[in-house]
């Protein structure tokens, strides 16, 4: 049966797929020593796409490129044209008006089937799928981790607009306004921080108490290891009441400007870069 062939095709890329539920065990991948040939997940992304984009994806090595950028996880919305249930997977044919593609969801026999989700996935209804693009004998399909029904049909419009925005981001760069600000301002801000840290920090800390501002400013400027500074040291250096420093620290922690390191009383500045 052709399914066996298909299965081996699927396995080759399963290691990077994660999830999926049952079916794809990769002996090599799981027994490698740490760092020895493990997949690098740091470049993983989840990209909204149209089905035409999936069909147009360019094969590169083991993966695919869309708009010249490598893809990993995809998400898209489509109308179910056909459902075929097999012992190990359910294949949905999805059509979003730009093309159609088969989406395979592996059946996890251990999991309790979510009947409510499944019964809503009927022919003609819209659904959203998340998964990875695979190719077997030049035939593309998507191995899906999740397929769920679309409850609010505005999601169809939303998805197509989101896919357009991301496509334009990859082909033309960020919107011109944002490009000018991020591109131009980031280095400038860093210079400001170094040259006239006080001014920049004050602006950044609007809404914080003056104690919090002092503590934060001190933490930015004081010499320290990557463990940061202890609450007591800060209090001593600034000649402030430790309780006041503790309160300031709480504010800064909850605002996400600093974080705890070796213990709850040792803090470091959360750098943007």
């Amino acid at each position: 049966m052709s399914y066996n062939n298909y299965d081996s095709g699927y396995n080759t890329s399963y290691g990077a797929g994660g999830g999926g539920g049952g079916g794809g065990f990769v002996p090599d991948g799981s027994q490698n020593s740490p760092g020895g040939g493990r997949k690098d997940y740091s470049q993983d992304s989840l990209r909204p796409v149209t089905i035409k984009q999936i069909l147009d994806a360019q094969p590169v090595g083991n993966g695919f490129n869309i708009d010249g950028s490598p893809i990993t996880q995809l998400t898209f919305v489509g109308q179910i044209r056909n459902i075929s249930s097999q012992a190990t997977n359910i294949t949905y044919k999805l059509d979003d008006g730009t093309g159609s593609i088969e989406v395979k969801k592996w059946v996890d026999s251990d999991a309790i089937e979510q009947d409510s989700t499944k019964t809503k996935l009927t022919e003609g209804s819209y659904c959203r799928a998340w998964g990875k693009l695979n190719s077997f004998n030049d035939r593309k399909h998507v191995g899906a981790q999740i397929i769920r029904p679309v409850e609010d049909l505005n999601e169809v419009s939303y998805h197509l607009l989101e896919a357009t925005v991301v496509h334009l981001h990859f082909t033309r760069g960020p919107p011109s306004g944002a490009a000018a600000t991020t591109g131009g301002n980031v280095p400038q801000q860093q210079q400001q921080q170094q040259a006239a840290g006080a001014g920049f920090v004050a602006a950044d800390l609007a809404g914080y108490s003056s104690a919090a501002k002092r503590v934060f400013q001190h933490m930015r400027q004081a010499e320290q290891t990557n463990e940061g500074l202890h609450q007591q040291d800060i209090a001593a250096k600034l000649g402030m009441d430790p309780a006041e420093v503790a309160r300031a620290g709480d504010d800064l922690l909850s605002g996400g400007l600093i974080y705890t390191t070796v213990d709850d009383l040792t803090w470091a500045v959360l750098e943007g870069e």
Partner: protein
Amino acid sequence: MDHPQTPRILAPHLQAFQHKLVRMLGKVETLQGDTAVIDAGGKVDIILNRDCHLALGHAVEIIGKVDGNLHIKVQAATDFGTGIDFDAANAVVEATHRHKEIFYDD
């Protein structure tokens, strides 16, 4: 069986898509026998088939062929309920024509 592309259009685009298969989202205005009028950036006459179940005032997405009189002969209709944001839906149509490369071939 493969499913052909169905460009999303509005009433003003009908002329350009004569004799083509299209997809249109509109609001059901009138229902009369096997015909109906939907509002999709303008009134559009549609010719229904037996499987269509349209509801007055509901949004409906139809797939069908534009005929010589700029009516659409419906092949499939999906009820989109009453909560549809038509501004967003019309923006989609605009986006699909402006950035055709990710939506349609021709």
